[in-house]
């Protein structure tokens, strides 16, 4: 996807209103946005599967730390936040109150839009990174992702994030 494509869409409609009304972010991401992302990830990686749940592998903590890191692509960071706001707007701020069936319906409807499908794809990629990257990055808690898929990272493992000295 070309950056300018989703950034162009980002500037339309209710998003700009939400930008003005969003809570003051903690470390760049508001509680509401954090909770929306967490809810989406928990829907994608539910409890009760043989794959670790989003809660178990700390998907949202990983996502927040990763996207707020200075090395993370600034446009994608903005996109992740704006896409969560757009979902909230579409669902009249009720997404967090939905049950599983309602969340499935809302997310599949969001996926029908080009913007929504790009955003969900980005959340999925961040989640998979959290599931299978080295636990050093804050996800893959207790190597649950590796264990579930009978794999592991290579040796030697990193001792610092992003090859920092």
């Amino acid at each position, binding site marked *: 996807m070309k950056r300018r494509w989703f950034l162009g869409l980002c500037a339309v409609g209710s998003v700009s209103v939400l930008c003005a009304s969003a809570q003051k972010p903690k470390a760049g991401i508001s509680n509401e946005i954090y909770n929306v992302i967490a809810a989406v990830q928990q829907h994608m990686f539910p409890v009760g599967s043989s794959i670790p749940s989003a809660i178990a592998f700390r998907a949202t903590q990983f996502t927040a730390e990763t996207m707020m890191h200075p090395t993370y692509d600034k446009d994608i960071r903005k996109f992740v936040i704006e896409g969560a706001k757009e979902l909230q707007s579409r669902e009249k701020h009720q997404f967090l109150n939905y049950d599983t069936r309602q969340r499935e319906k809302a997310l599949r409807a969001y996926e029908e839009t080009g913007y929504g499908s790009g955003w969900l794809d980005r959340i999925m990629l961040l989640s998979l990174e959290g599931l299978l*990257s080295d636990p050093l990055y804050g996800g893959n808690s207790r190597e649950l992702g590796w264990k579930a898929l009978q794999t592991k990272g290579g040796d030697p493992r990193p001792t610092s994030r992003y090859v920092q000295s």
Partner: protein
Amino acid sequence: MKQVYDAIVIGSGASGGAVAHQLCQAGFKVAMLEKGRLIRREEFSKDELAYCRRDSVTPNLFDEYHTIEEWEEGEGGKGKWVETPTYESNWSFWNGNIVGGSSNLMSGMLHRMHPDDFRLLTKYGAIEGANIVDWPITYSDMEPYYALVEELVGISGKAQAHSFEPPRSKPDFTQPPTSENQVVTLFDKSCKALKVTPLVTPRAVLSRDKGNRKACYYSNFCGSYGCSSGAKGSSREAFIGPALGTGNLTLLTNTHVKRLESDKDRVTSVVTVNTVTGEEQKMTARIFVVAAQAHESARLLLNSANDYHPDGLGNSSGELGKNLIFSAGGSGQGVLRQKSLKGISFDALMQRGLFINRSVLDWYAIDGKRGEKMKGGLVEFMFEHQNNISRAAKTRYSGEKLRWGKDLEEALKETFLEGKSIRFEIFNDWLPTDNCFVALDKKRKDKYGMPVGKLRINGHSHDLKVASGIAGKCEAILQKMGAEEVYSFVSAVPPQNLVAGGCRFGDDPKHSVLNRNCQSHDLPNLYIADASFMPTGGSTPYTWTIYANALRIADYIIAELQK
């Protein structure tokens, strides 16, 4: 600006390291300028997030980028060239900006070019729309240096008789092949049933210790990662480390070269900027060796235009930046599943780390529609890269819908637990054309204030035809092995890490940038050591030829410095 160096080498990748090593061994003082930092052997890890999914060892694309021009078809057969900066597409054309360059990150599957690759025009004739020329040197000029690379870099392999295997001056490799997964028995059997000859792939990976470099420990994560044992024959391990040991090499990291300065006849200095402090300085030497990777070397010379050389240094021919080529063709894949696997155990297939180590040269020349001989290509077979995140990411779609929940769980388990994919990569000639080149983008500059490189990328239709024919034969091998979901993909989208051309060498100064020793026709103390010199690329990955040619021209440079 005191001259203390015999030579300044710009870039520390395969060619820069090889030239610097030879000059230092001969007693000359060399400064090597590398825009990235040094990552030592013991600092490398198999960190997928850092090395494969982020710009940890390449520049941030908002700071430094390229503009890519691609042809977009329009209605009624009309089309247009569309340019996209890589910060928009996220399609980075940087490759390992660290000491040792992208040779740190290579898979190390190396091949010599065939003697016919040095005389492609004479052997196979002209093709309309392609700027094919013979090389000014022959395979016999290069062979001693191919052999020297085997020794210095440490290439493991096995000499094998095959009609398309180039002749060798040494009876066998100094290192035996790396260890192989049992799946090769299935591969070899399937090839033989199809009357195809499987060959052991030469690999720039040590199977035995060599000096202070330890043999491969089969980490399961080789390509795209630096090597933690020193087994991989990177420029850093094979050349820069030993060159530093001579006391003659000064390695300057975080040092980006903005431009070269010259008078009418000679390069006089380089203007550098420290990438951390922003401090600029000038350095000088007797000779200057540019080894910044093909598209960046041409850009540097174009950005160095001055009153004496208004079209760029070494560009009296007007050929600078033209005839860019890539090492590409196509690829394909199939999966061996536990439920249908025959001949070897599933546990053996799933054993981590061991290589497939097989290539096929049978189709290096192929028959055309009218029975004429056409240049074909070689094929490498390997396991799909074992990166966990990227393998998982491939499972995330069912049609156009994202999988999640139960669907995703089942897809992940099938991918990770129930089979293993084998991949093939086809390398055939990327014919040089008028529509594949690097120029300066007059509208866009990098963070150092220099125009960025604009790469127009276009493949010749002949290349796609050749690759398509070979892909079908490769699919047949995978199917014979019992692989499922076999597919192949042929396209003119280039691999950005395998680039050559742009400063082609030749004996005629009117039609080439460099002479046969990769010395500028216009400025005799200017050399281009990287793959820029290649007027055609052969049907192989370029690295062995880059190493060999750098050693070859180093001999010439040494002779010049000794005058």
